[in-house]
């Protein structure tokens, strides 16, 4: 019933591929570079309280050469409170990572991928275990907006508020200079729409606004749920180049998506979850193995475990 890959773009290994047209992707990531350049003033404006690794299990330098960069996962065999339950359960432990997520869903309609990310970000409480980042719960992080940026919905903005005001509210709450909102809008290509209410934004514009909001705090870690949803081809390319450039900049990007072709172009490491269990994990190459591509590997790895929703 539930299956999706979680993809991790790692700073250490940004894959250099060529698009069908032959242009190298990484070197042509001008849009993403512009995004970060435009956001540059923030770096000097606000000192980063903890200039250290935020997800040590993903980007600790000491683990950089490890085969999966510290990412290894295994199903959890016995979990508290599972006996007799007919509800689907997200249950997996990422070995060597201080992360255990356990949650019994209330209904079968609870999608595990979004819930998994929400547990990681402190928005949903696991019914057992704990979701931690670098050993700490998200809620216990000091200034989380300066460490982890997240895009879980298209924009998360009030329909009746302008794009600029949406970002300014976040800046104000997170203690970020308000001028950063305009820089983020410019970087996301939304300057002309800055004073329009979000109700008038297309889905693609909302995605860009969501990314702009997530990057306000100049975080080292970015978490995105289906970032390609609703984007046109130009938007998809913009998003892909942005994420790749962010990873190349030394940040960790965690993407949850069903768009396997996109993930195959983007990811360094993968976790495939089916029916609330880890079906596969490792580097992209190791997950694909002898299969012709990620889609084939995905379908075989998840065959018989659940139907695709």
């Amino acid at each position, binding site marked *: 019933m539930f299956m999706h890959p979680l993809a991790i773009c790692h700073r250490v290994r940004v894959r250099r591929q060529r698009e069908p047209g032959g242009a190298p992707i990484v070197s042509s990531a001008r849009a993403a570079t512009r995004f970060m350049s435009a956001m540059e003033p923030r770096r000097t404006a606000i000192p980063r309280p903890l200039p250290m690794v935020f997800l040590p299990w993903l980007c600790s330098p000491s683990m950089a050469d490890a085969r999966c960069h510290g990412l290894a996962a295994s199903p959890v065999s016995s979990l508290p409170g599972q006996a007799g339950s007919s509800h689907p359960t997200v249950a997996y432990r990422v070995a060597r990572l201080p992360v255990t997520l356990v949650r019994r869903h209330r209904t079968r309609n609870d999608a595990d991928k979004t*819930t998994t990310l*929400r547990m990681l970000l402190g*928005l*949903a409480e696991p019914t057992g275990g704990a979701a931690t980042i670098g050993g700490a719960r998200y809620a216990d992080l000091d200034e989380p*907006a300066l460490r982890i940026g997240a895009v879980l919905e298209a924009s998360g903005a009030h329909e*009746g*508020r302008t794009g600029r005001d949406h970002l300014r*509210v976040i800046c104000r*709450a997170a*203690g970020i200079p308000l001028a950063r909102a305009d820089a983020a809008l410019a970087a996301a290509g939304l300057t002309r729409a800055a004073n329009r209410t979000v109700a008038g934004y297309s889905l693609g514009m909302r995605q860009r606004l969501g990314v702009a909001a997530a990057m306000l705090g100049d975080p080292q870690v970015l978490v995105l749920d289906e970032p390609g949803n609703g984007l046109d081809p130009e938007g998809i390319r913009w998003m892909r180049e942005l994420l790749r450039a962010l990873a190349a900049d030394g940040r960790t990007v965690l993407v949850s998506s069903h768009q396997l072709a996109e993930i195959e172009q983007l990811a360094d490491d993968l976790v495939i979850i089916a029916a609330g269990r880890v079906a596969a994990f490792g580097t992209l190459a190791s997950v694909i193995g002898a299969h012709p591509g990620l889609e084939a590997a995905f379908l075989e790895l998840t065959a018989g475990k659940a139907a695709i929703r």
Partner: protein
Amino acid sequence: MTRPVIQPRLVSAEIMKIRTTRAWWIFLGIFTLLSAAALLTNIASHHYQLYPQQDLAGRAQALAQAAAARTPAGAAAIAASMMTSGQFLTVLVAMLLGIHVVTSEIAQRTVTATFLVTPRREQVIVAKLAAAGASGALFWLIATVLDGAVTPVFMASQHISASLTGHGVIRAVLLGLLAFVLWAAFGLGLGAVIRSQVAAVVAGIAIYAGGFAVAQLTFHALYDLTHQAWLLGAPVIAPAVASQVMTTPAPAFPHAPPQWAGAVIMTGYALALTTAGIIQTRRHDIS
């Protein structure tokens, strides 16, 4: 790192949220219109109190009331009444704003972004409480300025005089401020507990108006049966009655408890609902 529950920057962000949507201007417009309408109604009411109509059936009694209204104490009571015109109705707008502050975040799904920036949810609710309270205080200020501009003109036109800075008037005006803040907190707590915008608005109005009517009818019926005098003051347990008792210098109704009792009960409701709202918000998953 442990942070204080009240964070100025969060309060500032919540105030920014309130004033950056059209809803704020709608609230302000409705409040100003209601205040003006209440002031006009109060003017007419006090005019007929001071100048009873000739064909009034109980003319002698009306003339006696008019004479009493012209004494210094009567004039001061009119001044206090004018300076708090329509408060019984307009605090409802503060309550609705309190509901809106928290439920609009859920309805618009902006709560995800809010809790990502501030995962300690009690800090967000406390900041919203401060922002809603400040907005309630602004409503009070608007009403007080409006009343303060009109009251001296009205009193002069009716040939009565009373100081607007007298103890009774100042006390009534400040208790009005407390009422606006407490009703905003009441609405915020109610919204945080119920979460649904429509359901919270319906419940808020039902508690306000329905609670008032039900408490009065119930305790009067019980009084008719038992003739226990304290039952006549018991309706104060309804929030709207408690608020009325709190803000009315003279007894709001026969056997009404003292003002402080109304203030304690109203504060208790606001605190209890806000606490329940914090607990509910902390427990609820954001989906």
